[in-house]
């Protein structure tokens, strides 16, 4: 009898040991994610901030001259930021309304079979490698732009990049907007319809206003994707570091500058540190966007 109890307590200690080590292992794995995020900030900042031993922050952000390999190099990223801004702006102008229309159709009009079919197509689109779409823009869409607009001198420009990026951004808008539209309780629609409102009025006066923060959330997450997209803008935005005056101008967005130039620079040079500082700018943008999106989502739930 006594022996049995002893055995029991022995296994009990072993159990506790296993339990505690399991806890420790999963905790370590979870903490690693946080460590990686801190590591990304640490490494980008420590490499990036060193550009300010060469030039002042004011010159870096407000100078529009980006001539990094000149004998007297210029590291002003204003033109690069304008490149990112113009491409992102036009992309959102194309893809947000389209995403909105498709998501309303899916959540309010379509049957469940149709919805599932379209949603799986949209999921495929989300998985399309950006380099493949970039190649399409480079080889085919650019030719179409040259033929359509006889006055342009290059088919690689803001318009081309924005059309391709719209394809990439659509899935985010469709999926996230549709989720937030469907989150609006069914009885709200029924109440509106039973009061005599048309379906159109119900959608635009009852459903959409209630889904507003979800729609905003979708736009922010999608915009974050578009800003960070690299291969498409590297391949089809034209690559000219200048402030654009029309959508048919070529630009060099920030991501394209990093991807296009990092392979050529000497580690530890001013150019190297400048590219890391552009990375810091992108990192701060994406973190702020993510935090805003998280806040909006929490607000919706709470």
């Amino acid at each position, binding site marked *: 009898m006594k022996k049995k109890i002893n055995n029991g307590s022995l296994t009990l200690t072993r*159990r506790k040991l*296993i*339990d505690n080590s*399991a*806890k420790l292992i*999963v*905790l370590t*794995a*979870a*903490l690693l*994610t*946080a460590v*990686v995020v801190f*590591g990304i900030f640490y*490494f*980008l900042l420590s490499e990036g901030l060193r550009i300010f031993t060469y030039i002042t922050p004011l010159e870096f952000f407000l100078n529009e001259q980006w001539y990094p390999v000149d004998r007297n190099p210029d590291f002003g990223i204003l033109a690069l930021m304008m490149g990112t801004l113009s491409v992102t702006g036009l992309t959102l102008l194309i893809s947000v309304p*389209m995403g909105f*229309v*498709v998501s*309303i*159709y*899916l959540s309010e*009009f379509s049957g469940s079979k149709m919805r599932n079919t*379209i949603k799986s*197509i949209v999921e*495929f*689109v*989300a*998985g*399309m*490698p*950006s*380099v*493949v779409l*970039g*190649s*399409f823009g480079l*080889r085919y869409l650019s030719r179409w732009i040259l033929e359509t607009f006889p006055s342009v001198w290059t088919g690689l420009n803001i318009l081309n990049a924005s059309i391709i990026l719209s*394809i990439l951004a659509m899935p985010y808008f469709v999926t996230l907007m549709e989720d937030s539209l469907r989150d609006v309780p069914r009885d709200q629609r029924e109440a509106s319809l039973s009061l005599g409102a048309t*379906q*159109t009025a119900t*959608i635009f006066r009852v459903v959409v206003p209630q889904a507003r923060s979800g729609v905003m959330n979708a736009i922010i997450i999608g915009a*974050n994707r578009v800003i*960070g*997209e690299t*291969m498409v803008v590297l*391949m089809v935005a034209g690559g000219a570091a200048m402030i654009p005056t029309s959508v048919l101008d070529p630009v060099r967005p920030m*991501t394209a500058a990093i*991807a296009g130039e*990092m*392979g050529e620079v000497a*580690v530890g040079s001013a150019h190297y540190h400048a590219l890391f500082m552009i*990375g810091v700018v*992108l*990192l701060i943008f*994406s973190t702020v966007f*993510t*935090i805003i*999106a*998280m806040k909006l989502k929490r607000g919706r739930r709470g």
Partner: protein
Amino acid sequence: MKVDSLVRLIFAFFTFLFNVLIMGLMAFLVIRGIGQITWQFLSSFPSNSMEAGGILPAVVGSAYFMSIALVFAVPVGVLGAVYLSEYSKESLLRSVVLSATNILAGIPSIVFGLFGLALFCIAFGFGTSVLAGGLTLGIMALPYVISNTYESLRAVPPSYREASIALGASKAQTTFRTVLPAAFSRIITGVVIATGRIIGETAPLLFTGAAFYITRNPGTVFQPAMSLPTHIFVLATVYPETVASNLEGTISVLMIIVLVLFSLAGIIRSRTRRKLEG
């Protein structure tokens, strides 16, 4: 109502238009190069300064990169999700890990490339290598694996845990013998989708692991390798438009791999659903 059916028609029209265009584009990209895909194409090295020959080193390189990425991301991601779903209470630590996962998911791929360059290539001394590129991709895959595994674990009914605890199982036994197996096929679906997303990533590899042209497969993980997406990038940007057949073939191969992975995920998902429903 007349207005209603008009509105419905307009929304349906644009939805179908978008879907037709997008399916046309996908079909175009797959079919245009499909004639290129022969055993010869898949199993030989490029020749004539990459204008001809096959894509073997890119296929092999992609497999290497993905293996390292998954070996890193799957254990860390699954265990991290287990912490979030099974072990953590509402605490500061939990919200830090959750926020970190969200922030990681939003970081641009090129920033991961910079991080991989600074940490793996330079600080760890791996240089431009399969290991550095694979780990960089692994870090990118981490948030996908975590959030998907987390959802899968949350979908396991609490009664499973209660029954296991009631039978005298410990917390660790309950988690690893009952909850994880119950969520297994959903977790696998998530891993397959993460693979499909990461395999086409180009930017993070450009200066952490990619070689433009190699004549033999890497012998160790400390050598650079070619990959399908970076090969497409080089073929599309460096060569004139007349040299298109290898580009189209490589695009076709990558598109088919991604489509197969996504279909696979869809099949596993629908089979699981059927099993759960009885």
